[in-house]
């Protein structure tokens, strides 16, 4: 396969020995290692790469870099593709597959292009005006608009790319590895600063790669390689190619995305100082049909020729308002292309060596472009005369815009308009404290100045960082072949004549007419004009269009461009994929996953898990071959605890040890019931409030020894309770001598519950006396089980005779299996959270987060009687607040399904009458619906404003349509006197 536009050239970035095959829009082409997709397409003579956003006009490649507004493609297999990637930035690889966007049925025959016929309708503010009335119709319009508008299609399958994140810290971040950035990095690195040097391109060197220049007696490419070699040899320097700094944030933080072969890495860089060496981006000219494929930026042509050996045309015309485009003429001729004419807007053309025989037309304009899918000729006007010049490439240059985005993230007061550039440049070389601007982005024009500024910025940064002195970098000698040409531009970017559309913003299809219309309709602020016309609002953020747009608006308003001002600069500089922001934090890696020490046993034995905070806990056990549902399994597990004996893994409950001389006093101030006063080797159920008087957490407090307590917390509240205790110990009562240590992970804990639990325990530990006298209800003993320290607690959540047995975490599985073995003759079964829920609802035990939702006081839930003594505790004063003591607050009650069958819906509201859809006042809500194995009917706990037991209410869930008539009862359904758990 031939690449008709490829030529032999010295010093290319491509490797001609490594041919690569790729597909674009279903056709196979060849390129070389080192190509971008754009350079490879141009090498194959492919100019037409997409359709425009609004009018579906044919579009070609405009630029050679990040500023590209047109050549957005889908990369990868359809469905698994990435949309909206700039062809100018996609490194070519073998087997690459890409497609155009915004075209149907094909790129060449796009039906959407018919909208051009209706284009008088599609002016600025079109959507606002057309689709606002009548408002109900929007949902119909939207479907059509969504299909016709928008950039690219979202992928339909999982993204297989790899994403990761890094946090980095450095002394100096240098953004841009062109001449200024390389010099700044070298200067600072020689003074031992830790430097990160980034550049968005794969090949470093910036503008040097497109210029014909010798530095320090070497070619630009050799000089770049030698400079990079010095930097890369230093351990203190990190060079990141293909990395875009997309945002600058406060305190020296920068967001970077690095593209690698496998995926992307998001770097959060904290830099003590930074050097902006971001260069400048060329602007196009605004004229009739300036969007035709084959109209390209003049500087981009130099890059395609000098980096890739690609000459995008045989016979070129050049249209410019500045000298720099004359270098493109020289470059094209060296590459063997013909330069038909240079059309210069200005009165005088520069005298440029080597272009003596090229026709140069001054005070001339391009007023039209012929050829709808590719440039065939340009129409020019010189004075009042029109001429047609046949060509297949039109190189345009409307001047250069320093890339000041990162400097302006955080405020535009760092910028001032500069007439020579026709654009905004930084106000000084350190426009933001700690951020140096250098090189072209700082307004430096000649290469010598750019290099000198780079050295100065590196030295200034190193000085400010307090780096030791070193031999300064010498300013290298620069030799331009044929003389250096200035980017200073005439303050004109627009041709008034011509019949076609004049595009200002190619990506958003914003024309001169749209801007004029916005001004006619009264928009004056550039921010409003931008929003109304969508100027500069595409994924390219108007890199090639903003300055031209502002200039046209300023002219029409009779103002200076600096009076009109710029729009606000915001991160990101280039679009950042959601994958990069998410990194590895997706799916199961979204958060930490915690497993109990007995987890693997649960997995092997059919446990179905449910999350509880960060933990996974067994909800129920699906016994092999039984095919039970959740309800069937849970009822069976719960009934087995009531009738026989069961075990549950409660290792996830929070455990905190509190030690020290003042531990008892500390606990007395945290719990409503003076838990510090619990007797030695005794457990006490305790309730903690928040300072506002509402219940915060509950659990047991056990006195292990003098001045040593173990408290338990709800699983999900373990972290919050620890933090709460630390806060009060460190900031409120620092005079108390207390040490707090979380020990949750150190212990595996098993609840053993049921009438047969004592016999099981006796069988498990034959040498221990576990009689009711030796280990009474709320008793504690430290024992030795299989040679390890074991904590034995007589506490019950299920309401049955029950124990909790704690062993060091590594021994959890041993304990679990030993309990199953010891309990085998008694019919022991494990039970999960669902059965635990049935059991505790029957018993009227509450759960933090469901029944206790941060709005209930101890009195509301019948625990007011627990409050002990007169001394202060956290939350006590708040309980006296009028609203917390008033009559009629919802209180905890129980409910039984009136017909004994209908399930009580979850999260139901309680109302007085049967629900028919007519609104009624809510009298409260169901907090815990369940099923009582003892009563064999649905029961529930709830908070309601009810006077007496025995009344009838309706528990209604209007969302699901479920309702149940319920009878109000006491919130205890089983063993109200607690004889079973004390027995």
């Amino acid at each position: 396969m031939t690449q008709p536009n490829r030529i032999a050239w010295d010093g290319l970035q491509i490797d001609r020995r490594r041919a690569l095959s790729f597909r674009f829009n279903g056709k196979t082409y060849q390129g070389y290692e080192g190509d971008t997709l754009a350079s490879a397409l141009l090498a194959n003579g492919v100019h037409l790469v997409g359709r425009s956003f609004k009018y579906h006009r044919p579009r070609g490649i405009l630029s050679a870099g990040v500023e590209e507004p047109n050549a957005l493609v889908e990369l990868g297999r359809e469905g698994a593709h990435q949309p909206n990637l700039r062809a100018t930035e996609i490194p070519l690889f073998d087997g690459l597959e890409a497609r155009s966007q915004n075209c149907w049925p094909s790129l060449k025959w796009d039906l959407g292009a018919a909208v051009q016929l209706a284009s008088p309708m599609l002016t600025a503010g079109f959507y606002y005006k057309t689709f606002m009335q009548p408002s109900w119709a929007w949902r119909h319009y939207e479907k059509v608009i969504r299909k016709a508008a928008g950039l690219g299609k979202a992928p339909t399958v999982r993204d297989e790319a790899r994403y990761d994140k890094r946090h980095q810290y450095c002394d100096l971040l240098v953004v841009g590895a062109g001449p200024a950035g390389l010099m700044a990095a070298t200067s600072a690195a020689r003074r031992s600063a830790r430097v990160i040097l980034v550049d968005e391109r794969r090949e470093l060197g910036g503008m040097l790669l497109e210029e014909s220049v010798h530095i320090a007696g070497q070619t630009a490419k050799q000089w770049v390689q030698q400079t990079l070699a010095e930097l890369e040899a230093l351990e203190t320097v990190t060079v990141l190619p293909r990395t875009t700094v997309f945002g600058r944030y406060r305190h020296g933080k920068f967001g970077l995305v690095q593209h690698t072969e496998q995926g992307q890495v998001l770097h959060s860089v904290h830099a003590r100082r930074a050097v902006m060496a971001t260069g400048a981006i060329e602007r196009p000219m605004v004229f009739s049909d300036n969007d035709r494929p084959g109209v390209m930026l003049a500087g981009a042509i130099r890059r395609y020729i000098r980096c890739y050996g690609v000459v995008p045309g045989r016979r070129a015309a050049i249209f410019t308002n500045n000298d720099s485009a004359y270098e493109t003429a020289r470059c094209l001729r060296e590459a063997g292309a013909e330069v038909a004419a240079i059309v210069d807007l200005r009165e005088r053309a520069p005298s440029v060596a080597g272009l003596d025989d090229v026709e140069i037309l001054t005070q001339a304009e391009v007023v039209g472009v012929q050829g709808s899918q590719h440039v065939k000729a340009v129409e020019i006007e010189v004075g009042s005369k029109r001429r047609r010049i046949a060509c297949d490439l039109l190189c345009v240059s409307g001047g250069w815009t320093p890339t000041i985005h990162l400097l302006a993230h955080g405020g535009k007061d760092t910028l001032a308009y500069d007439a020579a550039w026709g654009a905004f440049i930084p106000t000084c070389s350190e426009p933001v404290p700690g951020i140096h601007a250098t090189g072209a982005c700082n307004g430096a024009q000649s290469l010598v100045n750019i290099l000198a500024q780079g050295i100065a910025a590196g030295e200034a940064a190193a000085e400010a960082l307090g780096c030791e002195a070193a031999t300064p970098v010498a300013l290298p000698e620069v030799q331009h072949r044929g003389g250096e040409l200035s980017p200073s531009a005439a303050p004109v970017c627009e041709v008034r004549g011509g019949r076609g559309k004049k595009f200002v913003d190619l990506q958003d299809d914003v024309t001169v007419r749209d801007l004029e219309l916005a001004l006619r309709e009264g928009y004056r602020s550039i921010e409003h004009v931008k929003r109304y016309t969508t100027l500069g609002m595409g994924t390219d953020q108007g890199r090639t269009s903003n300055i031209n747009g502002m200039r046209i608006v300023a002219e029409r308003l009779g103002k200076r461009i600096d009076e009109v001002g710029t729009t606000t600069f915001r991160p990101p500089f280039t679009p950042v994929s959601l994958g990069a922001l998410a990194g590895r934090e997706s799916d199961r890696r979204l958060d930490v996953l915690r497993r109990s020490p007995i987890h693997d046993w649960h997995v092997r034995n059919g446990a179905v898990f449910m999350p509880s905070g960060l933990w996974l806990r067994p909800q129920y056990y699906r016994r092999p071959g039984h095919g039970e549902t959740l309800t069937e399994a849970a009822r069976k597990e719960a009934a087995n605890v009531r009738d026989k004996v069961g075990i549950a893994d409660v290792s996830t409950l929070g455990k905190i040890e509190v030690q020290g001389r003042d531990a008892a006093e500390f606990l007395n101030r945290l719990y409503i019931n003076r838990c510090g006063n619990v007797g030695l080797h005794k457990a006490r159920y305790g309730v903690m409030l928040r300072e506002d008087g509402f219940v915060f957490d509950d659990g047991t407090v056990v006195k292990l020894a003098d001045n040593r307590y173990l408290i338990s917390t709800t699983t999900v509240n373990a972290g919050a309770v620890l933090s709460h205790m630390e806060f009060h110990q460190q900031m409120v009562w620092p005079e108390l001598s207390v040490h707090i240590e979380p020990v949750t992970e150190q212990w595996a804990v098993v609840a053993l519950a049921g009438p047969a639990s004592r016999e099981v325990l006796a069988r498990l530990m034959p040498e221990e006396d576990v009689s009711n006298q030796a280990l009474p209800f709320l008793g504690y003993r430290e024992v030795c089980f299989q040679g390890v320290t074991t904590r034995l607690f007589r506490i019950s959540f299920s309401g049955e005779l029950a124990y909790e047995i704690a062993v060091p975490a590594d021994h959890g599985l041993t304990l679990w299996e030993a309990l199953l073995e010891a309990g085998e003759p008694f019919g022991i079964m494990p039970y999960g959270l669902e059965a635990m829920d049935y059991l505790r609802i029957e018993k009227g035990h509450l759960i933090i987060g469901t029944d206790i939702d941060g709005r209930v006081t101890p009195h509301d839930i019948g625990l007011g009687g627990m409050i002990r003594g007169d001394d202060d505790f956290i939350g006590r004063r708040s309980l006296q607040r009028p609203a917390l003591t008033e009559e009629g607050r919802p209180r905890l009650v129980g409910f039984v399904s009136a017909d004994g069958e209908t399930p009580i819906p979850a999260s139901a509201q309680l109302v007085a009458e049967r629900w028919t859809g007519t609104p009624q006042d809510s009298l409260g809500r169901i907090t815990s619906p369940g099923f009582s194995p003892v009563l064999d009917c649905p029961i529930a706990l709830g908070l309601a404003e009810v006077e007496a037991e025995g009344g009838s209410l309706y528990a209604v869930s209007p969302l699901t349509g479920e309702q149940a008539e319920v009878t109000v009862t006491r919130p205890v359904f089983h063993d109200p006197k607690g004889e079973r758990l004390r027995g």
Partner: protein
Amino acid sequence: MLRIPCPYCGERNYTEFTYGGDANQARPANPATVSDTEWEAFLYRRGNPAGEHIEYWQHSFGCRQWLKVVRDTVTHDIVSMGGHGMEGGEKA
């Protein structure tokens, strides 16, 4: 963005810390003697200054020390910091 200089661990990323709210209100030494209005002020009344604000942060993923931090709510600059003994609102 925010880098918080923990007196124990040195300057660390703010993601290691947990915000604990306004630190201007000290808990009354004897809540029982405080009026409802004063107690309500302690519980709920908060300033919302554009500028220096003293607030609690805990170095949760570090030494677990609770700190009083004076932060500029406009610039996010950490103006000063200290432990329990630091006076509310004053520079340490």
